[in-house]
């Protein structure tokens, strides 16, 4: 009888419990400031970062379903990304989600650039992070000086695409003028591997033509 009463109570509580909102989700150290999370996670920073990313999935799911009060949810999402990065600065999924979710949201672009710039320092072998950070800085923040600095960082890294050279020169041209951009390309021509030279030459010719016409 006691067992039955207990089971009835427990069962009815499960049946009547409202669906949990993703913004209430607290996994491991969830919801705490990144520094506190890092302290509490101790030697399990990797797993704690993974759990932050899992929590982020559920926050994003709520954003998609919920039409109102999205600003708060986006703030929480950004906090989770920041926490995941603080815990494990090498984790590629954090940056993949930063690029995929945050960067294209009106309040998220500057956070994305910030996160990707810091990630670029940790993942020193990865050209994608400074490349994407530079692109977002140009396209969403219209900060070409920063975009140029990030793109020129991407160029220095192994396997960076030739497109990065063109973009870096474009950003420099827009922030510092055509002359600076030509100088930058001439410098690159001397320092970059041979396969980049044709693209650099073509870009220099275009800029010189523009300078002469303008």
């Amino acid at each position, binding site marked *: 009888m006691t067992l039955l009463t207990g089971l009835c109570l427990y069962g009815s509580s499960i049946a009547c419990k409202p669906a949990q909102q993703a913004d209430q989700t607290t996994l491991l150290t969830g919801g705490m400031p990144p*520094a506190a999370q*890092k*302290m*509490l*996670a*101790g*030697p*399990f*920073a*990797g*797993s704690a*970062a*993974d759990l932050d*990313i*899992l929590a982020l*999935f559920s926050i994003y799911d709520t954003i998609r379903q919920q039409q109102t009060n999205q600003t708060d949810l986006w703030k929480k999402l950004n906090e989770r990304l920041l926490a995941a990065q603080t815990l*494990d600065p*090498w*984790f*590629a*999924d954090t940056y*993949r*989600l930063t690029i995929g979710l945050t960067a294209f949201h009106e309040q998220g672009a500057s956070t994305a650039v910030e996160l990707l710039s810091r990630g670029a320092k940790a993942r020193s072998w990865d050209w994608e992070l400074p490349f994407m950070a530079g692109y977002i800085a140009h396209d969403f923040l219209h900060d070409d000086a920063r975009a140029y600095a990030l793109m020129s960082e991407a160029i220095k890294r192994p396997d960076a695409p030739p497109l990065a050279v063109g973009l870096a020169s474009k950003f420099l041209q827009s922030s510092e003028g055509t002359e600076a951009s030509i100088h930058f390309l001439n410098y690159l021509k001397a320092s970059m591997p041979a396969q980049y030279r044709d693209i650099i030459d073509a870009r220099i010719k275009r800029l010189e033509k523009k300078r002469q016409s303008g």
Partner: protein
Amino acid sequence: MILNNIYIVAAFTLREILASPAFRALLAATALFAIMALAVSNLFLLETVKVQLDFLWLGMSLLGAGFSLFIGTTLMGHDITRGTASLFLPHMDRHSYLLGRTAGLTLALTLLLALMAVLSTATVAWGLEHALPDRAAGISLWSATIMGLFALLQSATILAMVLFTCSWATGVVEMMLFSSAFTLMAYLLPSVMSAITSSEVIAQVPAWSVAFIHTIDYLFPDMSGGQVALCIAHGLTLPTAELGWYLAGQCGYIITLVAAALLLFDRRDL
């Protein structure tokens, strides 16, 4: 003669632990952690093998700590409070007895983590087979094994803390309470220290308190193996010199604590 006694106690300890339901539950939990690592990693987009390794490291560390804190403390506590030690001590000196117990516990811990390492290697092999190209660079089948060795070293450090605590504490509850508190502090101190000793904070506090904080930090073992595990999970190259000093430091700490435990156990009433 002494070695023979140590061997006999170690074999008895191993047999005793293997027969205990708690140890069997820990052995079963190794499979649970491997399955959990596989399940969770499937939710991620790019670095799935890294996620697997994160959870395998969590499993290894929790199993090692759980073994030391629950099985180690209970065994030593019963030895002292329920007279198991009195079966051996008329035939050998206390040093041989404690060393035999330590050896037996270490063997059982090694067995547990070896099983976890084998299952982890199988999980990583599956993960590498299904990982996206270039998203598991630097990770090999050995990664889980190396992680297992680190987990063994850290768990052995916790075991040494347990032995040290049991050598002076009275009663199983007291032993477990102090051992758990020391372990928790050892795990959390490195990250707390790095936060407290950051340049902004350190500028605000007097020099003597900084020295005090450092002294407390030195009393506890360096449990920053988690950073090493994170490097392994990302397939990054481990800095050899730092690693060497870390290993030397851990071994030195273990030897010091076991020696202190021997000295205290020799003097205590049973």
